[in-house]
């Protein structure tokens, strides 16, 4: 318990930050430490690609749902699922761009396209136990896991009208890859598994280059030195990972190959495995 402090025209609460400027770097560094609280360290986040999986329709979606149902039988494998938006997101952006909508307006619009895939997935998975999770209802997660219900999270981050002006161009920088990464990091999750339509991350687009080489297991530091320009994941994700404290492992697998997701969830090295050795990359 502490008394209130006056004397300078303002009423303060005593704390280490009382009267301090939160722009002052010295003050800010006093709030930091090497670790973050890890809230759900045994949970994996599974991100299912929009363009790579959902846009392929039934042929790609149903076998993957089938595998998810099998995975759910093993209660020890805790997961949260997120989905990408795919072609409809690109179309939304193309029209919004032509109309000259501000970046915050585009960011506000795109989430709806991802949500459609979340509804599709949930409709297929619900008979086996799944539920769309409200935006940030993370504190329900223990209940979901206990009940054997797989939560489907909203993947687009809630930047909406407040999407910051991008470093270059005029398109939002924070899409679903970043959103799901951030969700896993803030909750201190075990790993993020990106389910795509390639066997992992390549040094160039394997759909266009026959000689593209796949990365096996690589550290973030090593990958940063040779970051592919054509990347299956959003660059903002890698940029944010540099300063993030919690997440240590990102796996990129092929959702068209049955069994890869199951193995990745069990912690096996499949596809491309990117790890971050120390807290500061």
């Amino acid at each position: 318990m502490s008394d209130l402090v006056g004397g300078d025209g303002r009423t303060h609460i005593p704390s280490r930050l009382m009267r301090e400027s939160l722009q002052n770097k010295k003050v800010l560094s006093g709030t930091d430490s090497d670790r973050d609280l890890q809230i759900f360290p045994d949970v994996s986040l599974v991100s299912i690609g929009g363009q790579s999986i959902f846009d392929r329709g039934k042929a790609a979606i149903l076998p993957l749902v089938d595998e998810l149902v099998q995975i759910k039988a093993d209660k020890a494998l805790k997961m949260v699922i997120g989905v990408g938006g795919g072609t409809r997101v690109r179309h939304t952006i193309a029209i919004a761009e032509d109309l000259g909508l501000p970046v915050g307006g585009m960011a506000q619009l795109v989430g709806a396209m991802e949500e459609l895939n979340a509804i599709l997935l949930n409709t297929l998975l619900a008979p086996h136990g799944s539920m769309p999770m409200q935006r940030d209802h993370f504190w329900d997660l223990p209940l979901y896991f206990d009940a054997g219900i797989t939560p489907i999270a909203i993947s687009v981050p809630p930047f909406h009208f407040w999407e910051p002006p991008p470093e270059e161009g005029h398109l939002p920088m924070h899409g679903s890859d970043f959103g799901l990464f951030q969700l896993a990091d803030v909750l201190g999750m075990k790993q993020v598994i990106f389910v795509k339509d390639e066997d992992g991350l390549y040094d160039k687009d394997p759909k266009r280059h026959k000689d593209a080489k796949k990365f096996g297991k690589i550290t973030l530091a090593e990958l940063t030195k040779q970051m592919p320009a054509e990347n299956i994941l959003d660059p903002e994700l890698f940029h944010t990972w540099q300063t993030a404290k919690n997440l240590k492992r990102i796996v990129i697998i092929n959702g068209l190959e049955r069994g890869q997701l199951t193995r990745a969830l069990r912690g096996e090295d499949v596809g491309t495995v990117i790890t971050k050795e120390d807290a500061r990359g």
Partner: protein
Amino acid sequence: MAERTPVAERKTLDAALPRSDYKPTAVMPDVKVVKIGGQSILDRGRAALFPILDEIVEARKLGIQVVLLAGGGTRARHIYSIASELEMPTGVVATLGKYIPMQNARMLQMLLAKHGGLYILPDDFEKLPLYLQMGCIPVMSGMPPFGYWEKREEGSRIPPHRTDAGVFLSAEFLGSRRAIFIKDEEGLFTDDPKKNPAATHIPRITAKELTERGLPDVIVERVVVEYLPRAQWCKELQIVNGLKPGQVLAALKGEDVGTIISA
């Protein structure tokens, strides 16, 4: 820091590539987006706040469209301090940081209700045309809705996007040229005027000049100074002294009072 991929090669939002003939549309360019400081104004209570609200109501009667955003203040510093001790991730700290500006916005609404004060949520921008046409003064929290999705900044646990960022980003979305920050100082000085009486006032400075000074402390959140040069619409931040009678009204009328930080 990661190397940034050149934009022509970068995949943004599932491979959408930016077009070169983008012609931005301003959503509501006549709106004045105004922040009422937390520590600098609201924590001072009635003595500081009431004269400011009088000037805002006067501006509204002149037909000036105002949207008010509230800052946090000492209660935010208190919860940030305890959450930091507990080693909470920045996203959790940012979520905790939403509640105090929300309280402050609600206080402002109660005081302004008789003059059309209306509490609005972040997603209510779409209703602003109606509210403003009816002569209302919409009031909202200045905290951006990033919450758990707030990125960590190296060497800090405090969310880098706080209520200054929310004010700037609101002005930028609405297409407003200038974001107005009501604080308890007339803007920038060559030194801390509270400690050094010889410090002189800086009426105008660019974001680049401000960054180049490499000050250990700045009057607005660093991300705002970083974003300003790349904004499409909000090219100026105006910092005014709410304790000085007439300055808020002058700013709302578009006069160059206080300090203007430009892109």
